């Protein structure tokens, strides 16, 4: 196995090889493929400069960097960000042009995507980090910059809301979904949606 003799460059190549597609998948889910490639490129540029800081496993750290870069983009160029986010939204809602799946499969998938789309941004982010981008809850906590304990509670609630949303989605109506978020601030974001529990704070 590799040990201390591995050079920084070799370590970086390994990380790059292993993580590039995953970082790109994550970035694409946030800002679409095109901008996602730029974000991914920037992410690894930062990683190369900070190659000594890259932890093992590297992926959560890299996704954290990518996430920050996307935020920075949003701040710097809200117009470009809005367009990119719209593209990402299109991808994440499953509005694809190619139809190659079995019909039933498509329906299930669309129901799941519709349910997902009805959740808050925070819930979606957490759930997809785990279900789509392959992070463990502990790693997701690292990306989101919260404690594992906080994440456990958040995840529990997010799952519950997804279950509820799945129940609410009638599989018959597939329509092209663009649902996004539970009505924002119907209930305060903090205590949020989340009824009694969240109100005490455990939330987000």
């Amino acid at each position, binding site marked *: 196995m590799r040990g201390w003799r591995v050079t920084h460059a070799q370590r970086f190549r390994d990380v790059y090889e292993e993580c590039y597609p995953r970082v790109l998948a994550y970035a694409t889910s946030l800002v679409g493929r095109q901008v996602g490639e730029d974000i991914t490129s920037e992410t690894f540029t930062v990683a190369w400069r900070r190659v000594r800081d890259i932890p093992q496993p590297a992926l959560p750290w890299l996704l954290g960097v990518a996430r920050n870069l996307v935020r920075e983009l949003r701040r710097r160029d809200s117009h470009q960000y809005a367009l990119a986010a719209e593209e990402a939204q299109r*991808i994440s809602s499953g509005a694809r042009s190619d139809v190659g799946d079995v019909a039933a499969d498509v329906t299930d998938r669309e129901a799941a995507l519709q349910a997902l789309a*009805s959740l808050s941004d925070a819930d979606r982010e957490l759930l997809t980090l785990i279900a789509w981008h392959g992070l463990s809850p502990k790693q997701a906590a690292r990306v989101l910059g919260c404690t594992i304990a906080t994440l456990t509670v958040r995840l529990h609630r997010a799952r519950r809301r997804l279950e509820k949303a799945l129940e609410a989605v009638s599989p018959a109506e597939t329509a092209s979904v663009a649902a996004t978020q539970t009505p924002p601030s119907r209930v305060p974001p903090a205590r949020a949606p989340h009824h009694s529990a969240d109100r005490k704070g455990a939330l987000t």
Partner: protein
Amino acid sequence: MKNTRVRSGRPDVLRVLADARPDELDPARLADSPRQHDDLARILAGATDSRTARSEEPRRLWAGIRPLGTVVAVAAVAASVVVVSTLDGQDPSGVRASAHPQSSSATAGSASAASEGRADVQVDGRLELLSVAKKAETPAAEGTYWQTTTRSQDVNVVDAKGQLFAVRTTSTGQWSVGVRPGTQSLMVSGLDDVTAPRTEADKARWRAAGSPATVQAEASTTAGQGTLGYRIGTGRPMVMRTDADDKIYALGPRNVSYQDLRELPSNSGELRRQLEKLYAEDSSGAETGAGRTAYVLRQAADLITMPVKPAVRAAAYRVIANLPGVRGLGRVTDPLGREGVGVAFPGTARTPLGSVQQQLVVDPATGAMLCEQVVLVEPSARAREAGLDAGTTVDYEATTRMSWGEHQITVPKNAKH
């Protein structure tokens, strides 16, 4: 049901979601692109561009504090002083006198719990003496479970076959937080959960639409429009375990233990500074666009319902009263018909129902939180068409009980985990 703790694997619903991942996000399909190879070469060659140079310090970005939308800095006004003068120096008890007679579970008062648990003490004076005595032995013992019962309602406007009407979901929730080592915290939500047309007129429209079992509401965000489904009829309760190790609540982005709660400052200036620190730490707070004032208010309101020392609860009220933009509403009646003092959060929020305002209703006699509610300020055309006028309380969560108990709550047999 003993252990409803989330496992860290990928249970059911996450599996369903994983299977639904769009192909465009499949890493296997994204590997080995020309761009990937070009970038590697470029990066190793040391090329940078100005954009990446600017993002040199990811750490700095974590904070991500962008005070979106300036919070209207109305000076703390007279009406909020009502709250101050009522509560300052008094004991804002966490227990309302009208609490259900939970005598069996209300045994473990201490001197501070005796003041905290006034209602319980009235139930049985002997228990008061016992608990005071007990306190002398174990000063820290406030009780084993901090228990709250809430009644909530959510209203939304839905569409079915061209009919526009309002539905309301009501339910009861119980939360029992174990504060002693080895105890669990359980939350049961969705008790008596019923979703139904809001009024008779709404019911008529629902029938005219063919009495559909599910109806759709509009949901909108910056990213676009979508729908939110409601199932008409009754729902099943759900149980969740909410403790993680010794952490029993979340305060902002942090999870806190009972010990942490007991150590909160009872000086309102210090408390406010602590809450402001949480805002700075909490990236999600910034993300939701909630300004610092709203954030601190949120946390302070949460604190009031937690098992903090009476003095801390009082400090939390003072923090709220002194926040800019917070308005007192005078005497109001909560949705359960209980009279209290109203406090309005600064500003309004835009929702598909129109602009709404968040309010708290507090019992001035005890300082207990009676209700948190969301009131329509300027209904949207859709909301008006469904009979929701300005001033309608669309959502609320009323606290009907908040006290110490010695026994864990029972979970209904049909509860989902």
